[in-house]
Protein backbone atom coordinates (compact mmCIF):
# COMPACT_ATOMS: atom_id res chain seq x y z
CA UNK A 1 0.00 0.00 0.00
CA UNK A 2 1.33 3.40 -0.92
CA UNK A 3 0.09 6.63 0.63
CA UNK A 4 -0.67 9.65 -1.52
CA UNK A 5 2.30 11.64 -0.22
CA UNK A 6 4.83 8.89 -0.85
CA UNK A 7 7.31 8.53 -3.61
CA UNK A 8 6.11 6.27 -6.46
CA UNK A 9 5.23 2.78 -5.31
CA UNK A 10 8.11 0.45 -4.81
CA UNK A 11 8.21 -3.31 -4.85
CA UNK A 12 6.90 -5.03 -1.74
CA UNK A 13 9.67 -5.64 0.73
CA UNK A 14 11.75 -2.64 -0.29
CA UNK A 15 10.39 -0.65 2.62
CA UNK A 16 11.25 -3.33 5.13
CA UNK A 17 14.46 -4.16 7.03
CA UNK A 18 15.28 -6.97 9.46
CA UNK A 19 18.07 -7.64 11.89
CA UNK A 20 18.73 -9.94 14.84
CA UNK A 21 21.05 -9.63 17.83
CA UNK A 22 21.54 -11.47 21.13
CA UNK A 23 19.62 -9.91 24.04
CA UNK A 24 22.69 -8.31 25.55
CA UNK A 25 23.01 -4.58 26.30
CA UNK A 26 26.26 -4.45 24.33
CA UNK A 27 24.20 -4.78 21.14
CA UNK A 28 22.09 -1.67 21.73
CA UNK A 29 24.34 0.61 19.62
CA UNK A 30 24.11 -1.83 16.69
CA UNK A 31 20.32 -1.76 16.87
CA UNK A 32 20.23 2.03 16.92
CA UNK A 33 22.54 2.08 13.90
CA UNK A 34 20.16 -0.35 12.17
CA UNK A 35 17.27 2.03 12.87
CA UNK A 36 19.22 5.05 11.64
CA UNK A 37 20.24 3.25 8.45
CA UNK A 38 16.60 2.37 7.79
CA UNK A 39 15.69 5.99 8.38
CA UNK A 40 18.25 7.45 6.02
CA UNK A 41 17.85 4.78 3.29
CA UNK A 42 14.13 5.52 3.12
CA UNK A 43 14.77 9.24 3.30
CA UNK A 44 12.53 9.73 6.34
CA UNK A 45 12.58 13.04 8.20
CA UNK A 46 15.27 13.02 10.88
CA UNK A 47 13.07 14.88 13.33
CA UNK A 48 10.64 11.93 13.43
CA UNK A 49 13.20 9.33 14.44
CA UNK A 50 13.40 9.98 18.17
CA UNK A 51 10.18 8.18 19.21
CA UNK A 52 11.31 5.06 17.37
CA UNK A 53 14.81 5.20 18.81
CA UNK A 54 13.31 5.54 22.27
CA UNK A 55 10.87 2.66 21.71
CA UNK A 56 13.60 0.39 20.38
CA UNK A 57 15.93 1.15 23.29
CA UNK A 58 13.25 0.71 25.96
CA UNK A 59 11.87 -2.53 24.56
CA UNK A 60 15.28 -4.03 23.87
CA UNK A 61 16.59 -3.15 27.33
CA UNK A 62 13.47 -4.73 28.85
CA UNK A 63 14.15 -7.94 26.95
CA UNK A 64 17.78 -7.83 28.11
CA UNK A 65 16.69 -7.40 31.72
CA UNK A 66 14.10 -10.16 31.65
CA UNK A 67 16.33 -12.49 29.67
CA UNK A 68 19.17 -12.09 32.15
CA UNK A 69 17.44 -14.48 34.55
CA UNK A 70 17.78 -17.35 32.10
CA UNK A 71 20.69 -19.54 31.03
CA UNK A 72 21.24 -17.87 27.70
CA UNK A 73 20.48 -14.45 26.30
CA UNK A 74 17.33 -14.49 24.16
CA UNK A 75 17.62 -13.86 20.44
CA UNK A 76 16.04 -10.53 19.56
CA UNK A 77 14.69 -9.98 16.06
CA UNK A 78 13.87 -6.45 15.01
CA UNK A 79 12.05 -5.36 11.91
CA UNK A 80 11.04 -1.97 10.60
CA UNK A 81 8.46 -1.37 7.92
CA UNK A 82 7.29 1.75 6.19
CA UNK A 83 3.64 1.41 5.19
CA UNK A 84 1.79 4.40 3.83
CA UNK A 85 2.43 7.28 6.20
CA UNK A 86 3.50 5.20 9.14
CA UNK A 87 6.40 3.15 10.43
CA UNK A 88 5.98 -0.13 12.27
CA UNK A 89 8.69 -1.37 14.60
CA UNK A 90 8.46 -5.01 15.63
CA UNK A 91 10.60 -6.57 18.35
CA UNK A 92 10.45 -10.31 18.80
CA UNK A 93 12.36 -12.36 21.36
CA UNK A 94 12.46 -16.02 22.37
CA UNK A 95 12.86 -15.29 26.08
CA UNK A 96 10.41 -16.27 28.84
CA UNK A 97 6.84 -15.04 28.37
CA UNK A 98 6.67 -11.37 29.30
CA UNK A 99 4.03 -8.83 28.41
CA UNK A 100 5.51 -5.38 29.07
CA UNK A 101 2.07 -3.84 28.61
CA UNK A 102 0.90 -5.64 31.76
CA UNK A 103 3.20 -3.48 33.91
CA UNK A 104 1.45 -0.92 36.09
CA UNK A 105 1.93 2.69 34.99
CA UNK A 106 4.41 4.65 37.11
CA UNK A 107 3.14 7.61 39.12
CA UNK A 108 4.41 10.57 37.10
CA UNK A 109 2.83 13.02 39.52
CA UNK A 110 4.63 11.79 42.64
CA UNK A 111 6.87 14.15 44.58
CA UNK A 112 10.60 14.01 43.99
CA UNK A 113 11.12 12.10 47.23
CA UNK A 114 8.55 9.48 46.27
CA UNK A 115 9.69 9.04 42.67
CA UNK A 116 10.90 5.59 41.79
CA UNK A 117 13.92 5.54 39.52
CA UNK A 118 12.62 2.80 37.23
CA UNK A 119 9.47 1.71 35.45
CA UNK A 120 9.26 4.64 33.05
CA UNK A 121 10.38 2.86 29.89
CA UNK A 122 7.22 1.12 28.70
CA UNK A 123 5.16 4.07 29.88
CA UNK A 124 7.15 6.37 27.57
CA UNK A 125 6.85 3.94 24.66
CA UNK A 126 3.06 4.08 24.97
CA UNK A 127 3.22 7.87 25.05
CA UNK A 128 5.38 8.32 21.96
CA UNK A 129 3.79 5.61 19.78
CA UNK A 130 0.33 5.65 18.21
CA UNK A 131 -0.25 1.99 19.02
CA UNK A 132 1.56 -0.77 20.89
CA UNK A 133 0.47 -4.39 20.75
CA UNK A 134 1.83 -7.47 22.52
CA UNK A 135 1.36 -11.04 21.48
CA UNK A 136 2.80 -14.32 22.70
CA UNK A 137 3.24 -16.19 19.44
CA UNK A 138 4.61 -19.74 19.42
CA UNK A 139 7.58 -19.48 21.77
CA UNK A 140 8.22 -15.78 21.26
CA UNK A 141 7.20 -12.45 22.70
CA UNK A 142 6.15 -10.12 19.92
CA UNK A 143 5.76 -6.41 20.47
CA UNK A 144 4.54 -4.32 17.58
CA UNK A 145 4.64 -0.53 17.67
CA UNK A 146 3.30 1.85 15.04
CA UNK A 147 3.38 5.57 14.58
CA UNK A 148 2.43 7.84 11.72
CA UNK A 149 5.07 10.24 10.60
CA UNK A 150 3.98 13.64 9.44
CA UNK A 151 5.87 13.86 6.19
CA UNK A 152 7.13 10.88 4.22
CA UNK A 153 9.39 11.78 1.34
CA UNK A 154 9.15 14.94 -0.70
CA UNK A 155 5.74 16.59 -0.94
CA UNK A 156 3.98 16.17 -4.32
CA UNK A 157 4.23 19.06 -6.72
Amino acid at each position, binding site marked *: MCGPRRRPCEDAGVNERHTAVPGDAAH*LPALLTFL*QDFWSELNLPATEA*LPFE*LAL*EEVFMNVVMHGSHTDRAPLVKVSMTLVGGGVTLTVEDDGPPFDPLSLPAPDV*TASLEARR*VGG*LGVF*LVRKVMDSVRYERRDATNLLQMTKNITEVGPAPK
Partner: protein
Amino acid sequence: MGNTMFEIRQDDAGQVTMAGRLDATQCDAALKFLNEIAVLRIIDLARLEYIASAGLRVILLAQKRCKAAGGSVRLINVTPAIHDIFHYAGFDQILDITRAAS
Protein backbone atom coordinates in the same frame (compact mmCIF):
# COMPACT_ATOMS: atom_id res chain seq x y z
CA MET B 1 20.10 12.05 14.08
CA GLY B 2 23.26 10.16 13.19
CA ASN B 3 25.54 8.24 15.41
CA THR B 4 26.58 11.16 17.57
CA MET B 5 28.54 10.23 20.63
CA PHE B 6 27.55 11.34 24.10
CA GLU B 7 29.58 14.01 25.81
CA ILE B 8 29.35 15.42 29.32
CA ARG B 9 31.65 18.10 30.66
CA GLN B 10 31.88 20.89 33.20
CA ASP B 11 33.21 24.34 32.36
CA ASP B 12 35.29 26.60 34.61
CA ALA B 13 32.17 28.32 35.94
CA GLY B 14 30.84 24.95 37.11
CA GLN B 15 28.09 24.63 34.52
CA VAL B 16 27.56 21.13 33.15
CA THR B 17 26.83 20.47 29.48
CA MET B 18 25.42 17.27 28.02
CA ALA B 19 25.56 16.76 24.27
CA GLY B 20 24.70 13.98 21.84
CA ARG B 21 22.90 10.81 22.78
CA LEU B 22 22.33 9.80 26.39
CA ASP B 23 21.28 6.19 25.81
CA ALA B 24 21.47 3.21 28.15
CA THR B 25 25.10 2.53 27.25
CA GLN B 26 26.19 6.00 28.42
CA CYS B 27 24.27 6.26 31.67
CA ASP B 28 26.78 4.78 34.08
CA ALA B 29 29.46 7.19 32.90
CA ALA B 30 27.09 10.17 33.04
CA LEU B 31 25.93 9.28 36.55
CA LYS B 32 29.49 8.84 37.76
CA PHE B 33 30.44 12.22 36.30
CA LEU B 34 27.52 13.98 37.99
CA ASN B 35 28.11 12.25 41.31
CA GLU B 36 31.65 13.63 41.42
CA ILE B 37 30.38 17.21 41.27
CA ALA B 38 30.01 18.52 44.82
CA VAL B 39 27.53 21.30 44.04
CA LEU B 40 25.51 20.69 40.91
CA ARG B 41 23.32 23.62 39.85
CA ILE B 42 22.80 23.87 36.10
CA ILE B 43 22.85 21.36 33.27
CA ASP B 44 22.77 22.85 29.77
CA LEU B 45 20.96 20.48 27.39
CA ALA B 46 21.04 22.62 24.24
CA ARG B 47 22.92 19.94 22.32
CA LEU B 48 21.33 16.87 23.89
CA GLU B 49 19.79 15.00 20.95
CA TYR B 50 18.34 11.95 22.60
CA ILE B 51 17.26 10.66 25.98
CA ALA B 52 15.26 7.63 27.11
CA SER B 53 14.28 6.25 30.52
CA ALA B 54 17.84 5.23 31.43
CA GLY B 55 18.92 8.84 30.92
CA LEU B 56 15.94 10.18 32.84
CA ARG B 57 17.04 8.00 35.73
CA VAL B 58 20.46 9.71 35.74
CA ILE B 59 18.83 13.13 35.94
CA LEU B 60 16.36 12.02 38.60
CA LEU B 61 19.15 10.59 40.77
CA ALA B 62 21.16 13.81 40.37
CA GLN B 63 18.17 15.90 41.43
CA LYS B 64 17.48 13.63 44.44
CA ARG B 65 21.09 13.97 45.55
CA CYS B 66 21.03 17.77 45.17
CA LYS B 67 17.77 18.15 47.04
CA ALA B 68 19.10 16.02 49.88
CA ALA B 69 22.02 18.45 50.09
CA GLY B 70 19.69 21.45 50.13
CA GLY B 71 20.14 22.45 46.47
CA SER B 72 18.39 21.82 43.19
CA VAL B 73 19.28 21.17 39.56
CA ARG B 74 18.15 23.45 36.76
CA LEU B 75 17.93 22.11 33.23
CA ILE B 76 18.37 24.85 30.66
CA ASN B 77 18.09 25.20 26.87
CA VAL B 78 15.92 22.10 26.59
CA THR B 79 14.89 21.46 22.97
CA PRO B 80 11.24 20.67 22.10
CA ALA B 81 11.80 16.96 21.40
CA ILE B 82 13.63 16.41 24.68
CA HIS B 83 11.11 18.56 26.53
CA ASP B 84 8.31 16.27 25.33
CA ILE B 85 10.04 13.32 26.98
CA PHE B 86 10.52 15.23 30.24
CA HIS B 87 6.88 16.24 30.12
CA TYR B 88 5.59 12.70 29.51
CA ALA B 89 7.65 11.53 32.47
CA GLY B 90 6.27 14.33 34.65
CA PHE B 91 9.75 15.73 35.19
CA ASP B 92 8.46 19.27 34.69
CA GLN B 93 6.77 18.80 38.09
CA ILE B 94 9.94 17.98 39.99
CA LEU B 95 12.66 19.89 38.15
CA ASP B 96 13.19 23.47 37.05
CA ILE B 97 13.23 23.13 33.26
CA THR B 98 13.79 26.02 30.87
CA ARG B 99 13.16 25.54 27.16
CA ALA B 100 15.58 26.57 24.45
CA ALA B 101 14.81 29.94 22.91
CA SER B 102 13.05 29.31 19.61
